[in-house]
């Protein structure tokens, strides 16, 4: 039995269906990002969040209940919100929690685990998602954003310290250039960005009193470039995910089921590779009947926070080194958490 049989036609169906599924939500995200960019003044974020940092992180964790976002749409929004002054810790918490702690996912998880303790699984999934997101947020609070964010993001952050409230069109285009130039070309942007800081300042002051129509056009342009930025990584992620989605024989995973450690880590690697949407992954998890419940939980908690497409998309906000160490750290954290809980879940 071969564990890997690639078929181009099956691959193309899976690839297209991931895109068709993801693109509308991604587009909603980028539109929202464009609107935030054009219409939300930078100071709103500070007013909105509680002063206490722990409370602020916890609030970001449950924000998904009110503003549900799936993982494809959340990245462009978060990128814009960080530029508008949302603390990185809160942004990261929302980024991780929103795809899990939201009513749609709760319902689909409940439906998927019918007959397999649905109430317990659903509440565990939401609680763990919230908990992991908050812990990550609180840890990130102690890391300076210089070490977290990538260069285009840092440049636009510096820009924000000026009192201007106009949009940042000048600044987001280097990021698009990064997307167009591929992952490795980040250094291309380095040199223009520093002088751009000055330019942006002037530019934004000139824009200060903009008309509504211009703002709309600005929002649409911004959404369009955001869409291409994120779409680039969605394509790469969807392609990698589809290879694993169609070519790997599921039977190779079945022997792992008897060992808690192997089952849990195996399911998490699978979640990373399959890159399913958080609304539907519960149905796939429930399908692994022979696997222990903890392994399925690990799959459903880790998957929405980190998968192939997200790994690439996070690169639009965070430094590459941070993204990878974060992915690794989260993997270990979620695995340990699930294995610790294993004796209590029967």
């Amino acid at each position, binding site marked *: 039995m071969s564990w890997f*049989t690639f*078929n181009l*036609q*099956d691959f*193309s*169906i*899976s*690839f*297209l*269906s991931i*895109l*068709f599924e993801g*693109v*509308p939500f991604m*587009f909603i995200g980028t539109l929202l990002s464009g609107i935030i960019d054009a219409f939300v003044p930078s100071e709103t974020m500070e007013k909105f969040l509680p002063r206490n940092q722990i409370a602020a992180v916890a609030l970001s964790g449950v924000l998904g209940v009110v503003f549900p976002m799936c993982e494809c749409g959340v990245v462009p929004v978060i990128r814009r919100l960080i530029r508008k002054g949302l603390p990185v810790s809160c942004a990261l918490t929302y980024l991780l929690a929103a795809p899990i702690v939201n009513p749609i996912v709760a319902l*689909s998880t409940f*439906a998927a*685990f019918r*007959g397999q303790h649905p109430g317990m699984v659903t509440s565990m999934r939401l609680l763990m998602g919230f908990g992991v997101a908050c812990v990550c947020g609180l840890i990130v609070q102690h890391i300076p954003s210089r070490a977290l964010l990538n260069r285009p993001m840092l440049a636009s952050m510096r820009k924000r310290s000026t009192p201007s409230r106009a949009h940042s069109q*000048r600044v987001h*285009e280097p990021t*698009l*250039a990064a997307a*167009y*130039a*591929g992952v490795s*070309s980040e250094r*291309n942007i380095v040199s*223009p960005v520093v*002088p*751009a800081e000055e*330019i942006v300042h*002037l*530019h934004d002051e000139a824009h200060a009193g903009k008309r509504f129509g*211009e703002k709309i*056009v600005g929002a*649409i*342009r911004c959404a*369009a*470039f955001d869409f*291409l930025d994120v779409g*680039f990584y969605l394509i790469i992620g969807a392609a990698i*995910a*589809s290879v694993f989605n*169609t070519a*790997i*024989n*599921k*039977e190779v995973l*079945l022997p792992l*089921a008897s060992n808690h450690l192997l089952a849990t880590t195996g399911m998490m690697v699978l979640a990373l590779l*399959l890159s*399913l949407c958080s609304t*539907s*992954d519960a*149905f*796939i998890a*429930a*399908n692994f*009947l022979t696997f222990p419940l903890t392994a399925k939980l690990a799959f459903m908690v880790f998957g929405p926070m980190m998968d192939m497409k997200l790994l690439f998309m996070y690169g639009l906000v965070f430094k590459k080194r941070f993204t990878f160490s974060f992915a690794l750290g989260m993997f270990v954290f979620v695995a340990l958490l699930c294995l610790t809980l294993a004796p209590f879940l029967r």
Partner: protein
Amino acid sequence: MRILGRILAPLTLLEWGGILTYFYFSGRIAAFLHPMFRPLVLVTGILLLITALCVAIFREEECAHDHDHSEDHEHSHSHDKLSVGGFLAFLILFLPLALAAKISPDSYGANLIKNRGLVEDIRSIPGAASSFASRSKSIASGSLQQEPPVTITADATPSSRPKYIGVPEQTPLPKQNPDAEPPLPSNDYEQPIPPSPNASSPNDSPQDNTEVIGDAVVTYENPFLKPNKSGCIKAEVVDLLYAAQEPFTRKDFEGKKIEIIGQLVPNKSKAGSKSAVTAGSFKLLRLVMVCCAADAMPVAVKVQTKLPSMTMHDMQWLKVTGRVHYQPRSKADSDGVDYGDQPEPVIVADSITKISAPQEKYLY
């Protein structure tokens, strides 16, 4: 950079919007997405087209004030490097989608089914089960008040029992059941087939809900599962599996004649062989989709047949009519899954017909 922003970016958006709208209007989207998500594709497609136009029409010049710095800014990029990288990025954004749209067939092949593995337990597909549950709930409220009619009389089959214990000895296995033997259909089968007078109102009086097979009487008491004009209940693969875990619903199918469609999965398919034979037994497959084709799950039931074997393609769409029997699962092919005392549905086929693929290839 300027070329990217002005030509390639709108072009890419135009392509994405165009493909999304095309897939919606051509109906090809049905092969990829749950009906719930399809309107989103149309809306996004149209909005992307509009966005592409906006980006193409409203250029940088729209910011009509004198900042010559913008030109300096753009010139400070290393031009050739960016344009190569930019062009590469453009290709990645542009080509895979177009190619996939071109080569993608409308349904998965046998290879995927092999890789995903067949699901034969309803607990894995509760989305499908819940839609059925709503049907059977209304049934329960309708007919449970009165004593539900005894289903099959002659053999004292387990359908009248509350539990499915001890069935193996007493249930006549389909093979031994002379009444259900397909090759020589008895006259009782033949009668309902000419659909003329009694077919138009087969359920007006209670006796129309019963069917006599040999000395067994089969009662179709479920008002939602009425036999059609050829005397068959239209069922789906998931219905049969759902009924396997619910003794009450199982009664709606046990011993009943059903009509079911699905794709052929031969029992022992040799790797690489394109043709499959329907001799002895095979599996009838439907793909169940939750959101999109990426999460499609192959769901199958077993079919037994005495019909002369036909040779056809793997994954050929078939219409099968026959009687359903629930029999205990053998430990050997459970793959370590604990099915409990849940029996397994088996269709004993009277007829197998090749059909063309239906419009909706997935169950939701």
